[in-house]
């Protein structure tokens, strides 16, 4: 929960807050390891010279007299003190302590000595840290009076100045290098973050500078790949808003356009009916008014349907096209029979399914059938076909009515477009509702002349669903 608060910090701050202490930790660990390595290296190197001093001391031990004498190699020790840059201590003793020469209280070796194997350990001598080298060997012959072979222990100790200087130099070098690295890394980080964030600042000024009505998508050009999905999501969101606003605007346009004329007509007709005293004529006028009202009600319903398809929430489900076509066609049989039209259905005889919202698809098919039955003359034919081919499935309504002029086919489906060859009253909204629904469902509306270049073939084409349930690509 607390970590979430971090997410609202600026990227620059977060990166610096995480990376800078992180880098310092890494540098700390690295320095510690350098120090250990340097210490090991210093000990390896200086222990060798300590062993040299032990060997020199050993060479000066004499047991020729039966006793034990040590010619102290002072010259060598002095030389050694010079190179060791500090003080040097020594102790030569038999293991039983009978003989002890040198710095008697030099700390003993930490572990039991193995004969002729030098041992080095850190210790403290007179409150001063020292490195002690210890070495034991068996005397060539035991001291006079000693029955068994006897070991002699030689110890040389030095103060740590030169080792420490060596280690310090190495660690300081490493520290300088690491500090340079941290500073360079921090600098690069600041530069890189600043540079990476610049497109976002540009984006901000660009969006701020827009006018309220400007709902064009934001250009993802030059936007970092990480932020591009965000820009795309916002674009998508804005686009949906734009479409809804557009739909609303269209509805207002449609309503004002479509309702003004019929209402004006109705006012005129009602006025006429009121003035007419002849009951027969008055009745005729009332019939005309009813016809006008029926038409206005239908238009209003269509406009509302269109507005709904523009803005309704989509809840798609699997739809069996055969079943849907059959249901809708059955609804229109009575109307077709009244108009003397032969309405037929040619199902696919196989599961043809699409992903769609069934109510909307029914509305679209109903509209197509309404158009076909209305414009096809008495005695004509209207056929509903369900087919699938490859990845597509479709429902087509084929009639042998007047059709649409080939040059007007491209404009058919636009709002309020009406074919030049129709005389019947209409809104010019039917096809545009179908087109709107089909496009909303992810399909397309194809308009073409019917068989033998007569009538119209209106096809709703949609991506088919395979038996597994997947929409084919």
């Amino acid at each position: 929960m607390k970590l979430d608060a971090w997410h609202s910090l600026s990227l620059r701050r977060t990166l610096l807050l995480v990376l800078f202490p992180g880098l310092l930790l890494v540098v700390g660990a690295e320095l510690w390891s350098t120090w250990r390595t340097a210490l090991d290296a210093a000990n390896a190197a200086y222990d060798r010279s300590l062993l040299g001093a032990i060997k020199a001391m050993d060479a000066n031990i004499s047991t020729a007299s039966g006793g034990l004498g040590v010619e102290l190699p002072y010259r060598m020790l002095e030389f050694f003190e010079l190179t060791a840059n500090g003080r040097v201590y020594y102790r030569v003793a038999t293991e039983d302590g009978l003989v002890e020469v040198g710095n008697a209280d030099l700390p003993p070796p930490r572990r039991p000595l193995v004969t002729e194997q030098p041992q080095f350990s850190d210790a403290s001598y007179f409150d001063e840290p020292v490195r002690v080298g210890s070495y034991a060997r068996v005397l060539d012959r035991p001291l006079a009076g000693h029955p068994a072979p006897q070991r002699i222990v030689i110890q040389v100790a030095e103060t740590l100045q030169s080792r420490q200087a060596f280690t310090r130099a190495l660690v300081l070098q490493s520290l300088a290098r690491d500090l340079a690295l941290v500073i360079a890394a921090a600098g690069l980080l600041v530069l890189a973050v600043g540079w990476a964030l610049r497109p976002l600042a540009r984006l901000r000024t660009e969006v701020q500078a827009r006018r309220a009505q400007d709902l064009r998508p934001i250009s993802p050009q030059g936007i970092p790949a990480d932020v591009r999905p965000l820009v795309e999501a916002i674009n998508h969101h804005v686009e949906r808003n734009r479409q809804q606003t557009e739909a609303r605007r269209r509805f207002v346009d449609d309503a004002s356009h479509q309702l003004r004329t019929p209402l004006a007509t109705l006012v005129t007709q009602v006025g006429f009916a009121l003035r007419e005293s002849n009951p027969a004529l008055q009745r005729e006028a009332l019939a005309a008014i009813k016809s006008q009202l029926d038409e206005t009600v239908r238009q209003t319903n269509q406009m509302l349907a269109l507005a709904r398809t523009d803005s309704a929430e989509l809840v798609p489900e699997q739809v069996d096209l055969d079943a849907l076509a059959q249901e809708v066609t059955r609804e229109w049989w009575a109307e077709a029979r009244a108009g003397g039209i032969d309405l037929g259905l040619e199902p696919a005889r196989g599961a043809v399914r699409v992903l769609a919202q069934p109510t909307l698809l029914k509305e679209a098919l109903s509209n197509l059938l309404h158009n076909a039955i209305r414009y096809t003359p008495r005695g004509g034919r209207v056929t509903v076909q369900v087919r699938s081919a490859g990845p597509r499935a479709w429902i087509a309504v084929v009639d042998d009515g007047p059709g649409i002029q080939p040059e007007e086919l491209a404009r058919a489906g636009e709002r309020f477009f009406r074919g030049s060859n129709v005389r019947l009253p209409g809104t010019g909204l039917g096809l545009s509702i179908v087109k709107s629904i089909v496009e909303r469902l992810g399909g397309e509306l194809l308009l073409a002349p019917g068989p033998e270049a007569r009538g119209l073939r209106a096809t709703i084409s949609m991506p088919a669903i395979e038996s597994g349930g997947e929409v084919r690509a």
Partner: protein
Amino acid sequence: MNRKAALMTLVLACAAATAVAGPLDKTECIAPAKPGGGFDLTCKLAQSSLMQGKFVADPMRITYMPGGIGAVAYNAIVAQRPAEANTIVAFSGGSLLNLAQGKFGRYNENDVHWLAAVGSDFGAIIVAEGSPLKSMKDLVAAVKADPTKVVFGAGGTVGSQDWMKAALTARSAGLNPKSMRFVAFEGGGEAITALQGGHVQVYSGDASEAEQQMKAGAKIRVLAVMSDKRLEGSLAGVPTAKEQGFDIEWPIIRGFYVGPKVSDADYKVWADTFSKMMATPEFNKLRVERGLFPFAKTGPELDAYVKARVAYYRTLAKDFGLNVAVAK
């Protein structure tokens, strides 16, 4: 009289020359250190006195067996050469101190025949000629200022008599003896060499030894002697520790012992010879030359003295918290 005396001399000389298996034939003195120290001095006194007094026919041979301020030699005599009647071994008060602390291995003061004490010496505080230290007070001040800067050299390790002298000095100045920096040497000769080389700053050695070394040209200076009154001879100008306000006396007897299996007869020959020799003025002259003060004891008298002395050292070692050997 003259003839008689000459005859006597001849008889004595013949007896010495013909006594092939006698203890005084082909004599050897073991100095349990390297040449140049107090043991060497003791052996050399016996060597020249015996020769000058014609108590031996051939000059006494001096051999050196360094190791543990006499410990190695003591072990060698008791364990390996216990019946060598013609070998005497030099000892000093330091040897007795070590015996008291059990530093001579598994042996104690009852394991040899104590033969003769030929003189006494006194502890001395010695520095290099060019040392900035001019008195005991300077020394104590320097130790108090920085104990690590003043390194004490000593013949023998912690608990040896040289250490004991330094420790007594430190104690009388109110310092902890264990805080002193200390370097052990195999005898006083080495210590004086190290002193002149600047490897140690102070050597708590012996007065006679210092006097001998100075005569031989060593560049050293004596700060104090640990005697009850000023010494005679060339060290007469050196004040005692007491004079300088430090109540320390450290006499050191020097003498000889022989192996435990040397027969009573041979032991008696040696003891009588030493008694006779030490009564001569020639011996006294040689003793004074070597800076030793009169202290002549032989036989049972010495034996009793040695044992009393070891008992005293036991209590002293106890005072300093050192290891103490159990008396048998």
